[in-house]
């Protein structure tokens, strides 16, 4: 039961983008860790700024 609730909570966070920063950190660790000239890791605030701006570039909402 607890597992179910945890899973739902997880999906809710993913749906809303609440965990976007954590995903970014994970991706960064996986792909750019060993790379010496990897781009600097963004802070939560910097990342959110970039994420939100890029999210609203195209057509996001319909009729």
């Amino acid at each position, binding site marked *: 039961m607890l597992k179910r609730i945890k899973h739902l909570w997880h*999906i809710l966070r993913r749906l809303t983008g609440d965990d976007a920063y954590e995903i970014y950190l994970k991706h960064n660790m996986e792909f750019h860790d060993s790379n010496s000239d990897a781009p600097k890791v963004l802070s939560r605030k910097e990342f959110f700024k970039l994420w*939100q701006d890029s999210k609203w570039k195209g*057509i*996001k909402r319909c*009729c």
Partner: protein
Amino acid sequence: MHKNIRTIIWLCVVTLGIAAICAIALNRGESISALWFIAAAACVYAIAYRFYAAWIAATVLTIDETRATPAERLENGRDFIPTNKWVVFGHHFAAIAGPGPLIGPTLAAQFGYLPGTLWILIGAVLGGAVQDMVTLFFSTRRDARSLGQMAHDEIGPIGGAAALIGTFLIMIILIAVLGLVVVNAMKHSPWATSTVAATIPIAMLVGFYMRNFRPGRVLEASILGVILLLLAVVGGGWINHNENLRGLFDHDGLSLAWAIIAYGFAAAVMPVWLLLAPRDYLSTFVKLGTVTLLAVAILILQPHIHMPALTQFTDGTGPIFGGKLFPFVFITIACGAISGFHALIASGTTPKLLANERDIRMIGYGAMLLESFVAIMAMIAATVLEPGVFFAINSPAGVVGKDAIDAINKINSWGFAVTLEQMNQLAKDMGENSLFARTGGAPSLAVGMASIFGNAFGKSMLALWYHFAIMFEAIFILTTLDAGTRVGRFMLQDMLGNIWPKIGRTSWMPSVIFTSGLVVAGWGYFLYIGVIDPNGGVNILWPLFGIANQMLAAIALCVATGILVKSGKLKYAWITGLPLAWLVIVTSTAAWQKIFSDDVRVGFFAAANDLTTKLAIGSLPPEKAAVAPHLIFNQQLDAYLTMFFVVVLWIVIFDTARVTLRYLTGKPLLPLTEVAHEPSRLVEDWVRD
């Protein structure tokens, strides 16, 4: 499960579905339970999803689970992210389901409940859902390219340009008509106006919270915002009862239209994080919550439909919009049955998240079925009202007369019973001054929803439910308005950037102000005309929007058909070819009638000529004569705009036919742009979230 048991279950579903559709179609009694609608919809969707969509996925598209998607190949941790299919489904559904499926069915209910309901069901399973699914598939196979790019790459530059211009013009008309719906919902209603106004500072507060106070904590901020929105609905009631404050929010249509225009400009120029993004979070939460609540309430309450299956207005004399059942029911209900706009979301945005091709059926086809179900619920909410009440709310003053007594007499003369006392009591229950001639669909939908919610969860709060419903519609109409203006601005900057590169820089403030101003002026003009038009504006704008949206759907289906033919799947090309043919017939007929009909409520030129004659002989009352020149110009402009839509549509069709013909005769073609197969690294048991 044993194969025989499965067969029996599906036979039961088929039987129930047929029984429900027969019950809806053949009922000529006093009323019919809304449960039949739900049953019919559920069965039709289940059968279509299980068999038709599965067949398309397996046989026509040959979906390949082992193939890496763009999200996997191009993963960057920001926009290309392989994502759990339920999460993608949520994003996709939230993106495609706007106010359209709520308004269209409400307006089309003037023909009776039957035509709209059948079109929503059939149009969605054979047209809209197929369009969304194949577009999603083709975009996924092409690095998540947009519809315009695919049209350019696969059909030719003409198709690409048509998709671009079509999108831009739809945006303009769509925003104008949505603006009109909000204005009509707020007209002389201090409660609705103050609640809608309060959503602006609430969204800004949420924006600050997410950006500066607790960066990235989207969930916390949204919950805070939703609570504040609910308080705003209650607060609106308090303002409505406060003699000093209510005057501040009691405005006529024209001043509200100017306020919306000013707001639209400000929202397009302001940074996204301040208004647009937080408002979108709030509207998505409220939207999903309310739709779920409505479904639950309909199941608990099992309300009865009072509208007849067919009304006399199928002959084209309807008060809400003029025009016969064919083709206008298919134009009026676009979103919910088939909407070209979805192709823009299904290409570009959603494929960047898709973890595996096998999710395409659920996301592309499934999300459209859910949107179609929202349209069915809107149809139920509109038709649970007594028909007399429905027509009193939705008929413009230009048709039934400005005076309440005239309106009542006129509606009674159509054979729909309604009394002045009944309307006054209803307005009082809903906390409004008057519910006569509140066109646009939002108020009648809100009355329908309030009566369903009120009966299911307690009748004492009817006024609260009504204003909650208005807030619910207004908040995502305004989101569409903000987002649409901004997208229009980007597109315009992109186009003008070809002439003067500097203007194409999206961050250059003079260009931002200039292009935003142009876009706002575009939709602001149609909104202004819609408000001063005594026939309510909806009669002109909604069909124009429907024609434009169906034209975009036809372009998307052309692209899909062209790709199917080029991939050597000519024998399956009918899955998009049939809905395409239907849309072409419907759109062309509607456009023809809107341009050339002699009926002044249908034909644009007929209306312009009629007004010109009346103006010349001086038979118009002074206040009408003052605006008549604007209205005449507008009717002519609308006629040319409709002509433009049809010409663009036929150019794309001929272009697709040319591609097909070249394929059949073995002549060289633009090559398929499908990305080469790359095996997926994500193994079968990989946890996709």
